[in-house]
């Protein structure tokens, strides 16, 4: 990676909702940078805020405070009209392949829409461009006159990816895009995403709960817990020597295919709700290495090799 200015800069982003009398702190102070051609994975369990963060970046959720900049332009806190020029740069691919495509549009119509909307094609050559897009994602262009219900989940995800690529974005947000797919199909989609990234120098913000996928596709990983990033590392460093106790517990919990007898016990307790985050360090109720300070004080992100970790042990 060159040290060019980051493509995406997120600073102290917070997304809070009011719900049933309490404040849900879904995203509570997130900083991150993403460079061109890089894949940053956002991992975490329920309530960690990864999906909320992605949706806030594209403007589907309102932001409570903080900022995000894309190529130097602020993209948060904009009106619909002001955000429109950035719709091109930042696209989101969703998890559910069955709800992501308009059932009444043919594939050609679905793909033509972004092309025409953003002047990537004229009425005369839009069909040719649609064929090009389909080939790019590994689908037969002959299929473009068909309707979504005739395609499998994996194929629909390819079409959703094609639609996102149509506007030639610099950053693609992938929100659990392979979670609803079978393992063998997931592998196809991951390969596709990797090859497209290389060809187009795309950046990905890749949201997932599956750490195996993370290791395969991400350059860097941000582990989230109850609205905050608790560890941000280069992928291999995270897996080889996780710094934060939560990351360690997460890695230890994953069922492995080749495994000798475990001597570990699973992480106890429930994942806290972002409406009632624990005091001090949010992980302290479940942490096996907790001490007094953890209950009262809230740790910052401290530098560790190849990244940072939000734990007093790393201070």
């Amino acid at each position, binding site marked *: 990676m060159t040290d060019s200015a980051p493509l995406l800069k997120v600073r102290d982003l917070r997304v809070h909702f009011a719900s049933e009398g309490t404040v849900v702190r879904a995203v509570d102070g997130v900083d991150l940078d993403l460079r061109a051609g890089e894949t940053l994975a956002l991992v975490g*369990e*329920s309530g960690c805020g990864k999906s909320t963060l992605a949706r806030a970046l594209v403007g589907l959720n309102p932001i409570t405070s903080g900022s995000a900049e894309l190529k130097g332009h602020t993209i948060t806190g904009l009106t619909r009209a002001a955000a429109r020029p950035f719709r091109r740069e930042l696209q989101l691919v969703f998890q559910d392949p069955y709800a992501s495509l308009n059932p009444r549009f043919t594939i050609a119509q679905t793909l033509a829409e972004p092309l025409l909307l953003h002047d990537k094609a004229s009425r005369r050559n839009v069909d040719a461009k649609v064929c090009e897009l389909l080939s790019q994602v590994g689908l037969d262009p002959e299929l473009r006159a068909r309707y979504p219900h005739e395609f*499998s989940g*994996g*194929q629909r995800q390819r079409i959703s990816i094609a639609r996102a690529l149509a506007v030639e974005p610099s950053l693609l947000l992938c929100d659990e895009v392979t979670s609803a797919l*079978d*393992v*063998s*199909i*997931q*592998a*196809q989609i*991951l*390969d596709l995403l990797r090859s497209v990234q290389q060809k187009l120098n795309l950046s990905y913000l890749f949201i997932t*709960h*599956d*750490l*195996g*996928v*993370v*290791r*395969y*596709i991400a350059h860097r990983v941000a582990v989230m817990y109850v609205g905050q990033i608790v560890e941000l590392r280069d992928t*291999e460093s995270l*897996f080889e020597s996780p710094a934060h106790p939560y990351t360690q*517990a*997460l*890695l*230890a*919990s*994953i*069922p*492995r*295919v*080749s*495994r000798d007898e475990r001597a570990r*016990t*699973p*992480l*106890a307790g*429930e*994942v806290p709700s972002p409406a009632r985050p624990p005091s001090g360090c949010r992980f302290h109720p479940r942490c096996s290495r907790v001490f007094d300070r953890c209950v009262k004080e809230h740790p910052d992100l401290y530098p560790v090799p190849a990244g940072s970790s939000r734990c007093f042990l790393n201070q």
Partner: protein
Amino acid sequence: MTPNVSRELLRIRELSVTFVTRERSVRAVDRLSFDIQPGEVVGLVGESGCGKSVTSLSILGLHEKLTGRVTGSIRLGERELLGASASELRAVRGNRVSMIFQDPLTSLNPYLRVEEQLGEVLDLHLNLRGPAARTRMLEILSQVGIPGEERLRAYPHQLSGGMRQRICIAMALLCNPELLIADEPTTMLDVTIQAQILELLRSLQKQRNMSILFITHDLGVVSEICDRVIVMYAGRIVEQARTAELLHSPLHPYTEALLRSTPRVDVPGGGSLHPIGGLPPRLSEKKLEECAFAPRCPRAREGCRNGEPELVSAGGERLRRCIVPISEMGSARS
């Protein structure tokens, strides 16, 4: 392992389930045969559409809900379940054979408190009511790791996913079933909670010497909990072996391909991923002229198109449905 003389708990022979719609017939399960021994955990593995869920629903006669046509034999101990009367099946369900499902939210009645749901099972099968029932409920809840009176009064929506699944497990175990069918019970849970639930199932299984039929698509989970694994593809068994053997030296190209297309957490870079090309087959009623996996198989050869291979023994308890010589498996593909 107990010698062959022991009586198997569940004996399935030539089970076929066909769904008939106006457009076509779909053979979801095709002449399936396997056994489950008492105290054994058997994994049923495959991707969507392979027929594993349909198989599990058929055991308890729940296939009627899916309007399927079922033939074959499902024998629980002495009793034949297929074609049994409704009252016979009701006596078995929740009692000798229990089931837990993927989504704990929809498995529990949102309008009933926990104590009412547990109470229903105790009333129906054990004729237990009042204080005796209550004692049993508290006992079972503490066995599944959620002790305390206050849980009994709770409604499902007040509980987390992990807790709901524990309640479902508690309900399933109230009558000390001989067989627990678990259909993807941890798929919708967070990773750390999944680890807790798997641990719980493992310890309960050992304590009670209960058999489990564990349905999943996740080979990692299989490794954690199953003694033996059955791999399904297009409604048929393609391989069967003890867990460690299957995962370390698979003898069917599909099992092999499945392992190679799963990203690895414990290998740098996630390992090299080899997707399986193409799509799963469309299941129809017609007899296959070739091996169902042949179109996508990296080891396919001439003979694969000459009719479906038989399921043959591969030494010990191992079974495989493939004509590729065992000596070739495990080597690099052409």
